[in-house]
């Protein structure tokens, strides 16, 4: 029983880590980023390149790729998202426009990755050593994913809820129309949020690449999973994403252990539907 709790939390940690970036981009910048998963895959490949080509550890890759993800996302926002933001008459229109443009972006990233790396399976082994957690053996790389998602999540919550800067971001998320009345630069806040999301996608990519096989076209799986977690947790809510991620990890593990591994997907969608029936805006969603 305890073994399944630990395994479930470790699995859920991955989901939470992947979903946090998307929830910030969606909740604060109002951009439904369908190319999120492909950004993760790009980070996976970058890590793999550094690991196999340059013999740099993925931890070091984290130090390089996370700021790179932030900077690149700023560029993407400036040149691709900003024109959409400027011309969108309301939030709904921006969401639709961003879905369309990021759907295109998804294929651009995928195309570049396919040209550079081909369509084959890529994987490597790092930190694949056993660690004993409460009597259960888990892989160090997965434990790192859980630790990172909890640490990043906690840091984000502190920043969002305890600093003036975070308050600005939350104000934009809560009332994008009214925020400028208080002298808040909404565009700047949205840009920052989008970039933080990009940096988190890179974090997820680096960590995932340590234990998961990836292909140039595999991004959509991550986007889907992240989307489920984001909606389940309530869009824009970091604690919601963490809780929902861990919940899904636990559900999958318990179903696999006590019912049937074949039913894990069905169980995830059942939980998803059931929770949305009770709380249409997700666990931490605004009514």
């Amino acid at each position, binding site marked *: 029983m305890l073994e399944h709790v630990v395994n479930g939390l470790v699995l859920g940690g991955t989901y939470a880590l992947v979903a946090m970036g998307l929830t910030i981009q969606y909740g604060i910048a109002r951009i439904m980023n369908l190319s999120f998963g492909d950004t993760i895959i790009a980070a996976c490949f970058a890590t793999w390149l550094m690991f196999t080509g*340059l013999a740099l550890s993925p931890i070091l890759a984290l130090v390089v790729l996370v700021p790179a993800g932030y900077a690149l996302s700023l560029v993407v926002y400036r040149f691709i998202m900003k024109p959409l933001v400027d011309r969108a008459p309301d939030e709904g229109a921006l969401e639709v426009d961003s879905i369309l443009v990021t759907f295109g972006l998804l294929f651009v990233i*995928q195309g570049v990755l396919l040209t550079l790396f081909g*369509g084959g399976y890529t*994987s490597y*082994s790092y930190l*694949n050593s056993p660690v004993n957690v409460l009597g259960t053996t888990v*892989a160090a790389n997965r434990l790192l994913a859980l630790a990172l998602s909890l640490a990043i999540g906690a840091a984000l919550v502190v920043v969002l809820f305890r600093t003036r800067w975070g308050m600005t971001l939350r104000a934009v998320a809560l009332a994008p129309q009214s925020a400028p009345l208080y002298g808040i630069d909404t565009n700047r806040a949205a840009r920052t949020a989008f970039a933080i999301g990009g940096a988190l996608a890179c974090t997820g990519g680096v960590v995932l690449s340590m*234990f998961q096989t990836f292909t140039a076209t595999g991004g959509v799986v991550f986007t889907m999973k992240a989307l489920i977690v984001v909606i389940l947790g309530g869009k824009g809510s970091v604690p919601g994403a963490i809780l929902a991620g861990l919940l899904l990890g636990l559900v999958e593990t318990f179903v696999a252990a006590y019912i049937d*591994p074949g039913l894990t997907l069905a169980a995830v969608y059942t939980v998803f539907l059931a929770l949305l029936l009770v709380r249409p805006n997700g666990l931490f969603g605004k009514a």
Partner: protein
Amino acid sequence: MTSFIAETAGAVRRLMTRGATVALLASVASTAALAQEGDTVRIGYAVSKSGPNAGGSDMTVTPNYQLWVEEVNAAGGLTLPDGSQKMIEVIEYDDRSSAEEVVRAVERLATQDEVDFILPPWGTGFNLAVAPLMAKFGYPHLAGAAVTDKAPDFVERWDTSFWFMGGSVDYVDALTEILVAQREAGTINDQIAMVSVADGFGIDLVKAARPAFEAAGFEVSYDKTFPPETSDFATILGEAGNAGADTFVAFSYPPHTFALTKQAKVAGFNPPVFYLGVGAAFPVYPGIAGGSVEGVMSLGGIDPNNELTMAYRSKHEEVVGRAPDLWGSILVYASLQMLAQSIERVGLDKAAVANELSTGSFSTVLGEETRLENNQLRAINWIGQWQDGNFVAVSADGGEGKAAVKLPKPGWE
């Protein structure tokens, strides 16, 4: 930081050059061919260059097409019965891993591009999808990367189809034979823990395995399927470990094969027989698993003492830039050699080539006397095991180009 950027740029550049070399080879081939317009053999194919099947295609099928075209054109082209030679001109489509797309592409190759020959796509499902079309237009269908028990039926229905990879029952029977011998030798008990991916390959294999294991007196004490999206196997391995079985069998796709290996290492799950699905015969597998994979079993295997096989492997590495897989690649390549030799004997007439493929004997990388039985290649390796860094073909006692299986599997390092 500057040196880091320089190094990264260097790595990217190396990758680009490698990609560019392959692209260049292809374009050289096609320009050389175009130079003698009307004097070429047009060969078309649709393969998955993107989408979920791209990984399999990119490993087993596409590199062999490239290698073969490059080799044939370097030698002056395909030889015809009168001794003249014609360069190969390639028309390639991406089926984007969509069955509708592969059918459309094959139809286009046949009706609009009017190619002389069509090479098959990757995967059982896709080969079945294009089989009726290939037969309708009279093209020899060399299904190289397709595992099916129905091959004898298909040969009756589409008499220009050829099946090179055997069926699920063949693979399962070979495994069962080894398991029975090991049980008699007292190495393993009569319990088997079995998992399979709920998709084409997994479903097919597990359907063949259940009755075969039962008939051989084994009890499958853990028998579960998992969705293709599964990435975490900690729980499945835990439950399989609790099942009391000495034999663990997973009919899995590469991402699962890699994940199962990594997590089995972490969990210290090391049953005497550890048998995995697609991916364990990839040359990158030991690297992905992080060290020794001694004793791991899977489908396929090669004979490292066979000079023809080893020459093919080094040529593949030289031209494509990486080693072929240790299961299907060589079968795909052999099928292309058989096509070239048939053309040399009977010319470009599709029906005559199909007839020659059915009845002729060929010199291929598999051996000097490669023959099809009822349009199927039967002399293939069903089971391989990692032994001393090689994925060698094994049988219960060895012999005939196969090594003796070594069990119980040693511990993970």
